[in-house]
Structure formats: C-alpha cells, structure tokens
C-alpha cells in the first residue's frame, strides 16, 4: 500500500503549499511605498453629500465653502472669506480663485451655487432649516439671501452636506454617480459599501501631502477592527471598543490618539408622558444613574461621566460653575415618594393603580449604547422602576417621537456637526420638540435665549444667553445626560502626526507623515 500513502502525502503537500502560498502574501515587510491603510466603522451606501454622512469630507476628497479647525473655529475652505450685510440678510462668500476639481475644471461660483441649491432641497439637512431666500453666483462669489438674520450661516456651510462637487459627479437624473471633489485627495477606486482607494491630487493648491496613497476599509464589528489593528493590518484604526483599547494600551506596541468629542450620550424623556412629564420624576431618574460607575466599568474612562449636558470640549457651552448631576438613590426615592409613587406588592412603584413601567429604546450601531441601557435598566430597577429595553433600529427614536409613543430613548448626539452648536440646539430644543432633543417640553426663556443667539443681535450678551440655556436644561432635564465621549484611534508606529478632530469632520490624512 506504499503507493497509496505516497499519493495521499502528495495531495496533502499540495494543500499545505496552497495554504502557505496564500499566507505568504501577508508577511511582507512594511515598505513606505505602501498605501496608508485606514480602517473604520463607517460604510458608505450612497455618494450623495446629504446621505454619505461626511464620509468624503473626512477623507478630504470633497470640500465645503467653510472649514473648521480642531477647536471648532471657522476657517476658510473653498471660500477665502465671507461677510454679511449690515442687516444680516445677505451674505457673500468669495471663492478661492485657484481651486480646481479633480477632473481639472475650475471651481466656479455657478457650480458652488448649484451644489448648495441641491443641498438645500434635501430633507433633513441643516441647510434646509435655514431661512433661505436665494442662492446665486456673483462674479467669483456665492451670494446667499436670507428671509431673516441667521448668524450661524457660515457654520452651516461647513456642514458636510453642503460639500461642493464638480458637475461631472452628477449623472443624468442629478444623482451623484462619482465623487469629484476639490480636496487634497482624489478617489482612484471605489467599491461600495466598504472600500475606497485614494491618491493625492497633483494640482492641489496647498502643500503636497507626505502620504500619497490611502486605502479605507470599513469593518462592521469592533472586535474585528481591534484585531486588524493588533495584527498590523491597519495603520490608523477608528472606532475602538473600550476593552480592546485597554489591551492595546497595556501591550504598548501601538500609539493611541484620543480626543474628547463635543458629543454626549443622553437619555431622552418624553415630557408629555403621564409619568415622565413630571420634572421631579425626571430628576429622580437622573439621581438614580450612577454615571461614574458606568463610565468606569463600561466606557473604561471615569472622566467621561457627564456632570451636565455639554462636555468640556464645547467650551462655549460647558458651564464650569453648574451644579454637577449626582448619584443619590436616597434623594431619588424621596422625590418619587413625594410625587406619589409607592412600591407595590411586586416591588414595582405604583400610583393610583398605574405601575411605573417604561420602555427604553436604543440601537446597537454604537456598541456601548445597549450595554449602557442594560446598566440603566438595572439601576432604575433598584428604585422600583421597571424598564423594558428595546434594542432596535435608530429610526425608531424619531418615529416614536413623531407618533408620540416614545417614552425613554438612549442615543448619542454630536453637537458640532455644524461647528456652531447653536444650529443643532435650536433644532433639538425647538418649542415643538426635536427628533434628538426635547419631546413634549418647552421653556419660553430657553426659546428666546436661543433666538437671541441665532439672530446675532447683541453679541455682548451671547455668553450670558448660553449660560441661561445650560442652566435651564440642567434644571428641567428634558434630556438626561449620561456620559460624554472620547474618540480614540489606534495608530501604527510607522505613521506620525495623527491628530483627531473633535468635530469628526476630517481625519486630516494630509497632515500625516511616514515615520522616518
């Protein structure tokens, strides 16, 4: 039977060689000519600026008229400068004269005005909520006419949905078929939903980036991303889960860049609800939350326990003097007892035969949300509040807001999508409520403070108005702050110069350099 064994051994050898051959490819020594490999959680399912969620501005393919630096201070983007008329109703944005699209055509005022008009027509974008009258081209400038003064207009024109794409980006029915922008990188290959290859744009007016080729790969599972970072398969990895970060920090082989974001995790309460409408009940819920333990155990970052809605990374809005939100179960019990809630036979609070049971909706796209929801559920149970946690699709929150069925919702909110938080706040805390803000709650003092800020009159009182907003939100708790956010990226040792943008607008790849 010797022949047979040889034959079989031969077959095994072939199989092994095949495996080894496949494996060998991954073992190449890193050469500087290789592209920079970026891994993140964001998939892109559409190229349209209104729906691509800032993907192509992060990769610096497309530009907006106005840019912002890491402090959130507005900077020139495609527009060199801008100015408003004395009555605040007419704005002029003068374009950078040498700007070119990646297809070689010039960025003209006509093209920019057309792109902005398209953006304005998309529902759900910040530009659609601005009191706009007309957008037109005037020489080398874009002119925006308003129906009423709106001071944060330049900040809105920094929002990623207002990016300016070349006419060749659009297909016959005005759908975006490819992304031809004007940034330092151009798309060389695109494979929706998970992969993009970029190359430096030769005619970029600024300094030539040190890294000339970039690949971006979207990977959905946080564990898989962490493994890619650890195995050296990624140079820059975004969206790390707390535990993996801890491990990478301990191993000490990779760098970690971190920045606190102007983003908060919050618990939205339906203030029109028969139970949650009582501000004392909302205060009791807030007192029941052990934010520090949650931040320590679940976010692995005790400093991220929220003491007020706005994190310190929003310096204009964060009030160092505000009385911090605390954990005090005894006080919470007392508030609930005062409001008429008494434990029933099963330990659940009752009032007039109505049990204190509420539903909390959240979603798994940010992995920490379901875990935090579970922790909140356990803490509220200690007080005798039965919370049913529903982990579903994020859209159930605005849908529940619309039909009034929402009770509690846990989500995270970025207050600097538009670099001026005012725009988001005006939307979230409008008198009629906002999808990701208050519900069934309004406060005339807050509304007028926000209105004063938006109209831009009396700039001297702006700080005072902002303080008032923070104080009212802290006292009334239409949304209950839970935690703040720190964004981390794991960086391989061959890359230098990673700075994270707290506004999450750009990954600043053009500032990176290969380590010499």
């Amino acid at each position, binding site marked *: 039977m010797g022949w047979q064994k040889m034959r079989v051994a031969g077959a095994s050898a072939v199989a092994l060689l095949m495996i080894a051959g496949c494996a060998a490819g991954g073992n190449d020594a890193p050469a500087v000519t290789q592209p920079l490999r970026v891994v993140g959680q964001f998939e892109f399912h559409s190229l349209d600026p209104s729906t691509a969620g800032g993907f192509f501005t992060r990769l610096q393919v497309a530009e907006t008229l106005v840019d912002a630096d890491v402090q959130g201070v507005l900077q020139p983007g495609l527009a060199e400068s801008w100015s408003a008329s004395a009555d605040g109703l007419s704005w002029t944005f003068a374009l950078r004269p040498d700007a070119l699209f990646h297809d070689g055509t010039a960025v003209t005022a006509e093209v920019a005005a057309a792109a902005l008009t398209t953006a304005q027509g998309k529902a759900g974008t910040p530009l659609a909520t601005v009191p706009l009258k007309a957008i037109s081209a005037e020489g080398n400038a874009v002119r925006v006419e308003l129906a009423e003064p709106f001071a944060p207009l330049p900040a809105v024109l920094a929002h990623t949905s207002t990016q300016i794409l070349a006419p060749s980006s659009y297909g016959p029915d005005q759908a975006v078929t490819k992304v031809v922008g004007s940034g330092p990188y151009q798309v060389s290959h695109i494979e929706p939903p998970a992969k993009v290859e970029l190359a430096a744009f030769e005619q970029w007016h600024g300094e030539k980036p040190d890294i000339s080729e970039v690949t971006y790969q979207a990977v959905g599972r*946080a*564990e898989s991303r*962490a493994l890619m970072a650890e195995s050296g398969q990624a140079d820059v990895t975004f969206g790390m*889960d707390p*535990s*993996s970060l*801890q*491990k990478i920090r301990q191993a000490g082989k990779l760098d970690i860049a971190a920045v606190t974001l102007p983003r908060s995790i919050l618990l939205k309460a339906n203030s029109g609800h028969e139970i949650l409408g009582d501000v004392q009940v909302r205060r009791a819920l807030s007192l029941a939350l*052990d934010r520090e*333990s*949650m931040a*320590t*155990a*679940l976010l692995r970052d005790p400093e991220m326990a929220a003491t007020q809605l706005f994190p310190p990374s929003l310096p204009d809005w964060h009030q160092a003097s505000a009385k911090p939100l605390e954990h005090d179960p005894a006080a919470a019990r007392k508030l609930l007892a005062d409001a008429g809630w008494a434990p029933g036979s099963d330990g659940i609070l009752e009032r007039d035969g109505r049990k204190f049971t509420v539903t909390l909706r959240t979603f*798994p796209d940010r992995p920490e949300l*379901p*875990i935090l929801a*579970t*922790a909140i*559920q*356990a*803490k509220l*149970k200690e007080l005798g509040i039965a919370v049913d*946690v*529903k*982990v*579903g699709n994020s859209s159930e929150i605005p849908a529940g807001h619309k039909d009034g069925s929402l009770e509690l919702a846990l989500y995270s909110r970025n207050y600097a999508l538009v670099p001026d938080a005012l725009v988001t706040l005006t939307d979230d805390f409008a008198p009629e409520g906002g999808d990701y803000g208050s519900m069934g709650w309004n406060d005339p003092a807050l509304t007028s403070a926000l209105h004063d800020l938006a109209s831009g009159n009396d700039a001297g009182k702006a700080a005072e108005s902002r303080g008032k907003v923070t104080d009212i939100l802290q006292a009334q708790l239409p949304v209950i702050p839970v935690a703040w956010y720190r964004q981390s990226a794991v960086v391989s040792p061959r890359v230098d110069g990673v700075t994270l943008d707290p506004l999450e607008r750009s990954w600043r790849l053009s500032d990176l350099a290969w380590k010499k």
Partner: protein
Amino acid sequence: MTNAVAMHELSPAPAQSANRPHWVAGRTKTQLISAALLAALAVFAIAGPLAWPDHALQDLSRFLEAPSAAEPLGRDHLGRSVIARLAHATQLSLVMAVLCVSAALLFGTLAGIAAAWRGGWVDSVLHGLSEVFIALPALLVVLVVSAIANGDLWTLCLGLALAQWVEYFRMVRARSGLLLAGPAVEAAGLLRLGPAHIMRRHLFPELRPLLSTMATFGVGSSILALSTLGFVGIGVRPPTPELGLMITEAFPYYHEAPWMALAPVLVLTTILIGLLGLRSKESRA
C-alpha cells in the same frame, strides 16, 4: 444548522445484549459518557436558575471580577454573576431547542403521514411545499421570520421549527409510503383493524428509532442556530442570557476575563458533543 448531517448516520440501533440492565444494554461507552454529560447539564439547567435566581443583578463596581469561591465563574462586564447567567442561558437553550424540535417533529410527522396516507392532491401540495423549503437555507428562514418580532422567543422558535419540519416530513412520507403499501398493512386493512391500529402497530414502531435520532440532532442544530443568531445580533434580546449572545458579549474581554468567554463556549460545545456522542456508534466497518 440542518439535520442533513444526520442522514448518513441513520441506521437501526445496535442489537441489545442480554445480561445488562435495559437502559445500559447495547449502549456503547461513548453513549453512556454522553448521556452522563447531558444529564449533568440538564441538572445544571434545572437547578442552576433556582440556586442563582437573579441573572440580571448588576454590581458595576465589581466588573470583570475574577472567579472566587462565592462566584465560581467570576463576574461579567456589568458585574453580573457569570454562573447565574450561564445557568439561565443553558435552561433557555435547552427548553427552546426541545420546543422547536417538538413543533417541527409533530408537524412534519403528521404532514408526512397525511401525505403518504391520503396521496392525491394532499401529497402533491405538501410535497411541492417541501421541495421549496428544502431549497431554502434554514438560516434564511429563521433570519426572516425572527426579524418580525425583534427577538421575541416565540418567533425564533417558529422560525427554527419552520426550517426543520421538512426533514421529518420527507423521511416520514418516504417510510410511511413503503410501509403502507406493504403486506402487513394490507392484511390489517383486510381485517378492518382501523387507522389507529395501523399507526400504533405498524407505522410508529418503524418510525420511532429514526425520528428519535433525527430529533437528537435537531436539538443540537437548534441550539447552534440560536447561538449563531445571537452572534449575528438578531437572536434573543439583551439582557436575556443566551449562550451565543454571552459568547459575543464576552469576546471583547477575552484577554481580560477569559473565564467569561470560556464558560459559555464550554457549555455549548459540551451540549453538542453530548448530543453527537449519544448517537455515535463506536465500532464501524
């Protein structure tokens, strides 16, 4: 996920030897060990939830605590007792699997006998339906059905049963067809012994060994399917303890708290190995 694996292992049980107690007789060593393992797990699934009644009790200050005398499997990322969650998860998995298999078995067998007995359009319709179902990957059926209710237990169960009934149906239909056409049943028919007699005396004894083998594997694949759904994120809802979900939750902490990940993995593999071993035949050609 499918019982198809079981098909080539279907064969009559080995002959019984005379001088041993009935339940040991004819069982191989592997089968006895497997039965013992499964019995131990069943005891854990029944007694565990009684011993550790609250699986949702958190103590955030003690997250990822290492195993100790009081907490033999330590605590998880929310400071919950891992052994309590494991006991509840084992119970859930076993109960759900048995329910799914019973539903599939009952429906599949009844439909199979009906198709073989009545023939005609009943047979055509049921057979056509089974042809379609056999072409559907079971996971697809479960995925789509379980999406209806965001992880409600009964929809998961329904999905799994829908994915499995076809195998019982096809087997029962084929076997019953042969038996019903055989001389024994013909004689019984001539004697006017009635359908109940035929079922009890002719069909059931022939079908039972095969059905019990298929059901054993069915339980295994149901447990596996449940945990897979938990892993993909469309199974039961947190904080319900479920083996697949526990493994997924524990994975990010595998380097910090290996006990947390290993415990559910161990239980899952023990169940599956036990079920496999129960049906294994040690001496083969």
